[in-house]
């Protein structure tokens, strides 16, 4: 099943198998390609998963990407997983979520909380190319996991499950479900448990599949629901101790809250390519559209935003390996910021494309699908607002322990994106970061580091950011936790926005400083653009400085000509 072998820790920005998958998926523009744009759009119009795509991914063994090596899979590096999955999101996000990410989300709960028997079952299910669904969501409770009602009551030999789950990917098609169930009727954080239900051994008379939920985007994804009527499950089906469900989920989902937005940048990558192709061929007002300064400026801004989204996503993703005790903060920050950047950039491209963003036919037709498919990045799995809410109560502690003065620094490999990584430490994920923040905290050392004279502007930006971090710390330290709960005032939410902006800027600066010399990432143009685009202030940043825009637009055109990705890795593509 698994043709890919393991040896020394993998190095490099992307694994070889990402290129293999890219090659298998083939050219988007080839009308004869069964996984090309024409077939993808056709499946979308019918609100079905692309059969040829699912078959291809089954043969490729995509599910092995979601299984850690100790359980027989290929999940050795979360950032490599992201790069593999971008190949899917670049073409058909419905395949990315519907074939891929939904089983990944289920998987991380197993690798975090499952025992040897449970993880072996899950690994076997996934490596056989079957699915596991994550049955958490109840429409009445949204992101409020502690409110979920599907009940698990004690029975003779285990539990009886009763209740409903709604809008769950692949619920009907999955061989197993990870169910979040209320095992204690009292309110509190120890009142829920995760239960692994094997559909093959579950009494079908106790399960009723609800009609499919239809959606605006990701139309092919099979969103189901289920009614459960006193379904008996054995004690051995509970993941971890009874009552540990919320804790396990909050830890495990740090992985998926980070990597899902990171992989969805593949959508923007293709969106940008469609826009550039369209606008470089389009004659407007007696010349090429891309000769218009406004169009060039907008395209370059989107390119810069894609790069900074991926840089922040990469640091967050690598932190899962290297700073798992801090990723309760970084995962929410990545989801909050990367989703924002991707959504806003896609909106700008839509404005540039005008009517062509709205057409369901012709050479730009894939754009309207990608535009619709991207939307869940803002609310799927967890909503941006919920991330903001979960960051807020952590701010005073972060301020006190990490922001005010130089402190513990992150290992340099966090930012050296090609460097090998230790295994994902699912057992080291923590409910809260206890005020530790090596990334933002590194602003102190960055400002004091030696800088070459030609980067004086960058150094000045770092010094300003350090001053802003100290000021933010002074505002956050005195805040009382009771003011930072779910009913916090809007101005307090702005503190999260300011913090995440600083965090993302610092991630970009560190990625640039640790980039391999001579590469595009080691050049200052993209960083200057990233810092300009994320500059503080009440007004939106203006156009990029001329030389920065020229350098980035030239790079954009080169990559288009060479058929390389527009993201961090600049990899050769077959799109």
């Amino acid at each position, binding site marked *: 099943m698994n043709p890919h072998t393991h040896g020394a820790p993998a190095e490099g920005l992307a694994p070889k198998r990402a290129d293999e998958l890219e090659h298998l998926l083939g050219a988007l523009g080839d009308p004869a390609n069964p996984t090309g744009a024409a077939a993808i759009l056709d499946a979308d119009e019918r609100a079905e998963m692309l059969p040829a795509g699912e078959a291809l991914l089954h043969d490729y063994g995509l599910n092995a990407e979601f299984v850690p090596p100790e359980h027989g899979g290929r999940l050795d590096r979360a950032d490599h997983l992201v790069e593999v999955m971008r190949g899917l999101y670049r073409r058909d996000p419905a395949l990315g979520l519907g074939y891929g990410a939904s089983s990944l989300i289920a998987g991380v709960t197993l690798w975090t909380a499952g025992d040897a028997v449970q993880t072996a079952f899950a690994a076997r299910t996934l490596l056989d190319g079957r699915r596991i669904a994550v049955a958490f969501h109840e429409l009445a409770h949204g992101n409020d996991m502690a409110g979920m009602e599907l009940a698990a009551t004690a029975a003779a030999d285990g539990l009886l499950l009763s209740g409903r789950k709604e809008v769950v990917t692949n619920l009907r098609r999955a061989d197993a479900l990870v169910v979040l169930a209320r095992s204690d009727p009292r309110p509190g954080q120890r009142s829920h448990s995760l239960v692994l239900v094997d559909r093959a051994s579950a009494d079908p008379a106790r399960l009723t599949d609800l009609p499919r939920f239809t959606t605006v985007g990701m139309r092919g994804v099979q969103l189901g629901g289920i009614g459960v009527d006193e379904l008996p499950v054995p004690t051995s089906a509970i993941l971890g101790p009874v009552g540990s469900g919320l804790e396990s989920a909050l830890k495990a989902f740090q992985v998926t809250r980070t990597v899902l937005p990171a992989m969805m940048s593949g959508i923007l990558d293709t969106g940008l390519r469609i826009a550039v192709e369209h606008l470089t061929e389009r004659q407007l007002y007696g010349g090429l559209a891309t000769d218009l300064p406004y169009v060039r400026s907008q395209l370059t801004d989107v390119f810069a935003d894609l790069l900074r989204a991926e840089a922040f996503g990469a640091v967050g993703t690598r932190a899962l390996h290297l700073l798992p005790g801090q990723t309760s903060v970084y995962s929410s920050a990545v989801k909050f910021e990367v989703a924002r950047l991707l959504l806003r950039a896609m909106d700008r491209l839509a404005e540039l494309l005008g009517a062509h963003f709205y057409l369901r036919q012709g050479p730009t037709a894939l754009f309207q699908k990608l535009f619709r498919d991207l939307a869940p990045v803002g609310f799927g799995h967890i909503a941006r607002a919920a991330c903001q809410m979960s960051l807020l109560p952590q701010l005073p502690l972060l301020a006190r322990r990490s922001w005010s003065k130089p402190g513990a620094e992150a290992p340099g490999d966090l930012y050296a994106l090609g460097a090998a990584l230790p295994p994902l430490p699912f057992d080291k994920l923590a409910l809260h970061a206890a005020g530790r923040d090596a990334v933002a905290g590194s602003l102190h050392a960055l400002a004091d580091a030696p800088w070459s004279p030609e980067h004086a502007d960058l150094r000045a930006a770092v010094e300003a950011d350090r001053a802003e971090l100290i000021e933010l710390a002074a505002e956050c330290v005195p805040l009382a936790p009771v003011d930072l*709960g779910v009913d916090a005032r809007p101005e307090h939410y702005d503190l999260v926005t300011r913090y995440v902006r600083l965090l993302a800027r610092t991630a970009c600066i560190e990625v640039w400083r640790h980039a391999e010399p001579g590469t595009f990432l080691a050049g200052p143009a993209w960083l200057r653009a990233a810092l300009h685009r994320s500059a503080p202030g009440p007004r939106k940043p203006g156009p990029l400085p001329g030389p920065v825009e020229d350098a980035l637009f030239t790079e954009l055109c080169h990559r288009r000509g060479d058929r390389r990705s527009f993201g961090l890795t600049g990899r050769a593509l077959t799109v």
Partner: protein
Amino acid sequence: MTAGSRDVRTWLTERVATYLRRSPQGIDTSVPLADYGLDSLTALAITADIEDEFEVTVDDALTWDHPTIDALAKVLGELLGQQPTVDDTGVKGV
């Protein structure tokens, strides 16, 4: 209950009172913190205060497993054991 855990409880009550902007006298130490409006994530912040105050490392889910001041004081008292911890005037070194 030992004298040590009573002192830990006094400190915890004052800390929670500060968090809630209430007077310590108005806090029932047997009532779950959530009932006073400290939500689950906010309650986690208390563990960091405990760590700073007593120079110990505690489980990150401490306040979830011990959701009242009484329960927290009991487990902390046990954790701090025979070591001198706090007296009426504040912290002694540990």
